[in-house]
């Protein structure tokens, strides 16, 4: 299992557009991918689960991936978060 912590820097938080991108990226991998934030853990392949967290500016989140392609999955998700200017 691999995991990494991020902090949201986009003033708009995780809105539909970035969430779709993130969920889209996660869905390309077979690993189980979860997102932990605000004391809850959800499946990162579930757009409704992620949006329901209502993640905003300054929130910390931990992404964990477990499975055959866990390394690649985490790297791709990190790229998405950083390239979209969402988190650091």
């Amino acid at each position: 299992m691999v995991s990494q912590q991020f902090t949201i820097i986009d003033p708009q938080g995780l809105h539909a557009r970035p969430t779709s991108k993130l969920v889209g990226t996660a869905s390309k991998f077979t690993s189980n991918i979860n997102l932990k934030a605000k004391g809850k853990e959800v499946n990162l392949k579930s757009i409704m689960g992620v949006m329901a967290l209502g993640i905003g500016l300054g929130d910390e989140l931990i992404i964990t991936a477990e499975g055959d392609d866990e390394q690649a999955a985490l790297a791709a998700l990190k790229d998405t978060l950083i390239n979209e200017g969402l988190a650091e």
Partner: protein
Amino acid sequence: MGTILRGIAASSGIAIAKAYRLVEPDLSIEKKTVSDTTSEIKRLQDALTISISDLEAIRDKTKLELGEDKAEIFDAHIFILNDPELINQVEDKIKSESLNAEYALKEVTDMFIEMFEQMDNEYMRERAADIRDVRKRVLSHLLGVKIVNPSLIEEDAILVAEDLTPSDTAQLNRQYVKAFTTNVGGRTSHSAIMARSMEIPAVVGTKTATEVIKDGDLIIVDGLKGEVHVNPSEEVVQQYKKEQIRFEEQKAEWAKLLHEKTKSVDGHEVHLVANIGTPQDLEGVINNGGEGVGLFRTEFLYMGRNELPTEEEQFEAYKTVLEGLKGQPVVVRTLDIGGDKELPYLNLPKEMNPFLGFRAIRLCLEEQSIFRTQLRALLRASIYGNLKIMFPMIATLDEFRTAKEMLQEERQKLISEGIQVSDEIEVGIMVEIPSTAVMADLFAKEVDFFSIGTNDLIQYTMAADRMNEKVSYLYQPYNPAILRLVKMVIDAAHKEGKWVGMCGEMAGDELAIPLLLGLGLDEFSMSATSILKARAQILRLSKKEMEDLAQKALQMSTTNEVIAAVKAVIEK
């Protein structure tokens, strides 16, 4: 005997065809117990698969016709149907409670809808509507009910609906849809804007169209008068057929002027350009012989959403318009928001006098990050065409200088980041505040152009709220006071070798055009569909005679005298 419905003429033209009602199907469901849960799950999966492929088709069509932006919502819908949390819960419910797929889907989605509706963020609450929309599609496949699908229309038809949503209009088969009529809406509602961009007649706000009209009724939509005739007599049909021919002939006559220059009989050339609100309006500009864009309102990028548009989104929109016009001028007005045009996510306080308040450039100079993001996007897009930047609501030279300085700063930053920026961008202002018109001689030394925004200039000069019916008699475009201000602005600009445009309603007005031509206006910016008519008019006018007319008008004492003088000249 036929019935006549009256509404708002939202898009001109006349159409005669059978009605096609676009109304909600019956999706009521019952709770049932199933014995074979495996095949019930299969039924669910099949419905999901078909729904996803429906949505993919709609998304692709939308992307092609309306652009990436508008298609994104359908991507989100597809993600919802692929959501493992949602699907697993529905499948579990079918299995553990032996429920029918319809009911299990309803129960689980209801739970999600409730959860989103209770969130304290308006944006999240709206996501509940997305889930409802997607559920409707899956249910219709499960129930075998046809969702009315206007993309399947295969003969000439007039759409009759409560209202048309973007997802309805994206699916239209444009070959067969000859007109719209809706119960609700006004000239600026989505359906009205779509009708104008598709160049088909529309009458909106009829209140009762869906009640009165049945599928297959013969309908006449008169988009000139704002009338809908339901099952008219043969006599009325014949009369309208003649009118339709007249309208088409007129249009064909104007269409000959598509690539013509706009020159008066004595050889004075002016430019006719269009007011646009989104990149989708480009097609209309080109099809109507527009020689560029005189006013690109950028507010659309900021409205109907819950976050500011990113620099990248804005860049794409500006680039699309600049490239689409292939080097013809595009005057982009920077954000004109605040006051009556609200952006909920900016949390601006309510004002007593929004038209005199914190809006447009006043807001942009204060909320610098919003303004600078827009300027950067514009500067980056500048290399794709002939960009001109215009600041709205400028009241003082200080405001113009500050705004221009910010533009220069962003420009320098981009250049030092190695990003290419055009060095031929003209920078001008809207003249809509009387103080600026009065000081036009001094502004003219510093700006590259003026564009007179008559809607606001008239209301500020006459101190009359144009939304207030009690004082609407004071909204007088032909009042000599307005004409004198327009003349001051034009003369001041020409003295410094600068050009002047006009982008209010007045620029496309048959009675104003002779006066404006006489006063020396260089560029007339109007809705695209008015361009050819205006061109036809100017081709028949003499600049010299219009100068004389304008000179006389400036000395008249009332608006009615001016109107009478113009009419006498036009009708000659």
